[in-house]
């Protein structure tokens, strides 16, 4: 039944679109600040999960630098560089990317590592999460020298770190990523902390 005038049809579509866009824009402006605050809080919380607050006294979330798709949050204590938190993404996961946060002290030793995001198999690869197993704690206190050693890999590859039963790819991806960012930090230290030159 094509009785309606095309113009009237178009007009109705236009009016409905305007009203709905108006509604969405209104809610967007009302929630914008709250959403930004949430994102900021979440970032702070994840940064503090790898670096305790007594190790720095600057605003971490506002002091970052990006090199090669890796984000470095610079920590200072009494105006001297004290540590760095590295947010990076491994593309070697079993299903999708693994995003992780690695805190290193100024000599390149690992303070802590946390997984931010992953889609690894539940029950197998997800043991990289701290709430599923303690595996991630193996990395704490490891030094730059450890990372350069040939045993910085999973046991399956004659290395130092446990793999999980049924999941080798996931831990291998994490181990490789940590070495990658660790060495990257060492090689680009003066670019990240210009005051160390």
């Amino acid at each position, binding site marked *: *039944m*094509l009785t*309606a005038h095309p113009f*009237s*049809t178009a007009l*109705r*579509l236009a009016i*409905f*679109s305007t009203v*709905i*866009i108006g*509604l*969405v824009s209104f*809610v*967007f402006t009302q*929630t914008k600040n*709250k*959403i930004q605050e*949430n994102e900021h809080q*979440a970032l702070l919380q994840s940064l503090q999960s790898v670096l305790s607050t007594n190790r720095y006294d600057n605003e971490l979330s506002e002091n970052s630098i990006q090199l090669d798709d890796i984000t470095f949050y610079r920590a200072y204590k009494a105006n001297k560089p004290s540590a760095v938190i590295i947010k990076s993404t491994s593309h070697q996961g079993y299903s999708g990317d693994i995003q992780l946060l690695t805190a290193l002290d100024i000599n390149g030793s690992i303070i802590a590592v946390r997984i931010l995001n992953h889609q690894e*198999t*539940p*029950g*197998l690869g997800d043991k990289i999460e701290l709430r599923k197993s303690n595996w991630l704690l193996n990395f704490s206190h490891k030094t730059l020298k450890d990372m350069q050693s040939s045993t910085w890999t999973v046991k399956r590859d004659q290395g130092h770190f446990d793999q999980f039963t049924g999941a080798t790819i996931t831990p291998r991806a994490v181990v490789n990523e940590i070495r990658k960012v660790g060495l990257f930090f060492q090689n680009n230290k003066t670019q990240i902390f210009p005051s160390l030159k």
Partner: protein
Amino acid sequence: MTYTQIISNGLWKNNQAFVALLGLCPLLAVSNTVINGLALGLATTLTLALSNSAISLVRHTIQPEIRLPLFVLIIAGIVTVIELLMHAYFYELYKTLGIFIPLIVTNCAIIGRAEVFASKNSVLPSLIDGLAMGLGFSLALLLLGGLREILSSGSLLSQAELLFGDMASQWGITLLSDYSGVLLAALPAGSFIGLGLLIALKNSLENYFK
């Protein structure tokens, strides 16, 4: 149709998940735990109730030629508003449910109810229909989520604080400690099998009481 009929249709007789088999993508993907399932179910219910009411309210001004784009527009607008509100006020839950909140738009059950019911009935019955269909869908998510959570991790209601706030942080029940879990239940295949079992259960219940 009486209100009782509308409600029994939504919850049982024409349950969108178990009978109409609509909205399988969110149903199968987000039913890995009770809390995830319940949260998506509630968001879907809210969307259905609002979209059914809104569409019923304007049903006389919508010409048949443009009804589908307008349904999509209204539903997408409502879902975007819900997404923004969740992002602002239920941040952790928003992160857990992730992509599945915007994907509510593509849940065929919603545009299905708009077309079949809301565009032909007045506001109150449409609202009731939206609520009943949404609750029926939530029920399916809840049952499937419970089944999969028990089988895959031996617990129930874990992470309830995401939905109910801090007071719920102790609600999680560990049914079987030292349980290694059935991996299949956590994977998509287990989701399909679980849904199949629940549909079989519903059908056999119906045959039994016939």
